[in-house]
């Protein structure tokens, strides 16, 4: 009796789950594109900006179009996360080899007061020639970071110096300029490489 009850209970519960599944499916059936659209709009990727690359040349949002792109925000006075990430991006691109050639990678400073184009160039080029450093006027950097929903904050140190808190993820943007996903700090190498591979050839 109670066993039967239990079985009926389980059956009812799984029926409810199935129904719920169906509803979720119905609710999201043709949503992916709309969701993608919303994410792109809310993430602000593609919004115009005017900054300076590490060679001193102007750079705009057009730089993120036409090729799959990986973007990382950081600063050169960063003991671990930024050098590790720059090192890892270079390693991922090396792993991908020719397949990864279309990928463009950028390192945008959240500390433009200290990170001049010259400093960015000498720093970034010590990791790889595949990453371009970007800096600019503090206000312009701030509005770009804000539009991408990147967190950054200047933290004073007792010595009078300061450090920066900042979002540590790598942003992935497809060739059409759509935000696709992020690679988290310390993400497994295979996963990171797979995400980049997918960014280059979405259908594979």
């Amino acid at each position, binding site marked *: 009796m109670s066993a039967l009850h239990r079985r009926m209970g389980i059956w009812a519960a799984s*029926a409810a789950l*199935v*129904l719920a*599944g*169906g509803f*979720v*499916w*119905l609710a*999201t059936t043709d*949503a*992916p594109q709309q*969701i*993608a659209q919303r*994410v*792109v709009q*809310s*993430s602000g990727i593609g919004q115009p900006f005017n900054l300076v690359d590490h060679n001193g040349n102007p750079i705009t949002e057009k730089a993120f179009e036409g090729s799959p792109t990986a973007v990382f925000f950081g600063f*050169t*006075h*960063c*003991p*671990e*996360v930024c*050098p*590790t990430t720059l*090192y890892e991006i270079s390693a991922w691109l090396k792993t991908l080899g020719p397949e990864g050639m279309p990928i463009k990678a950028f390192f945008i400073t959240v500390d433009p007061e200290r990170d001049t184009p010259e*400093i960015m160039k*000498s*720093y970034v080029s*010590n*990791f790889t020639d595949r990453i371009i450093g970007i800096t600019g006027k503090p206000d312009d950097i701030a509005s770009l970071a804000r539009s991408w*929903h*990147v*967190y950054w*904050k200047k*933290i004073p*140190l*007792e*010595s009078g*110096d300061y*450090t920066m*808190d*900042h*979002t*540590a*993820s790598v942003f992935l943007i497809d060739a059409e300029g*759509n*935000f*696709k*996903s*992020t690679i*988290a*700090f*310390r993400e*497994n*190498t295979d996963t990171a490489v797979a995400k980049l591979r997918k960014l280059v050839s*979405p259908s594979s």
Partner: protein
Amino acid sequence: MQMKFLSLALFANLIAATGAHATLDTPQLPDNGYSKAVFDVSHGWDAHKEPAPGIMILAASSGHGTDHAAMNQPGYTVGDLVITNVRAGATVPKAPVAGGYMVIKNNGSASDFLIGGQAAFAGDVQIHEMKLQGDVMKMRELADGLEIPAGGEVMLQPGGYHVMFMKLSEPLKEGENRKATLTFKNAGSVEVEFAVKSRKDLKSHGMGHSGHGSSN
């Protein structure tokens, strides 16, 4: 009737399941912690209340987690403190900062505090804590120093507590040994040598018995 409805739902669910891989393509807004971090600019972090992840304060009895690196290198003793596995991250030329790491064991019956240091290759030496909050990396100076509890062991390691070498006058190269002085509130100062290691080698610290580290 009810059965029919159910099987319809089942069918829908099956489609949903088979279609699931398509929705994996859907870009996702970063998770909750992310947007919170974005909008709640004021959210602070009290380094004294919440230790950084990966920090282990071990009881003295379990302090046999030595590895090859720690065994190859002599420990340093100052007062009741024993310092092992002293290492620093190699830097690229022009890098302004570097991190120093070690294990500090306190055999005494009172807390001590690592409050600072000095190094010829750095204009400033500070004691910092770092941690990942959501996907935001935060770093704080430990104004009162890093506490080494009585009978306890504290690890300074990537992603957590570190000695922050600032205003580097020259790069730290892998394979080098760099002298520096560490200063404790009670035990005083001690000169140690930081073994400069690559990013990969830094990760394998004295947590396991094998010392071969879990490279991830």
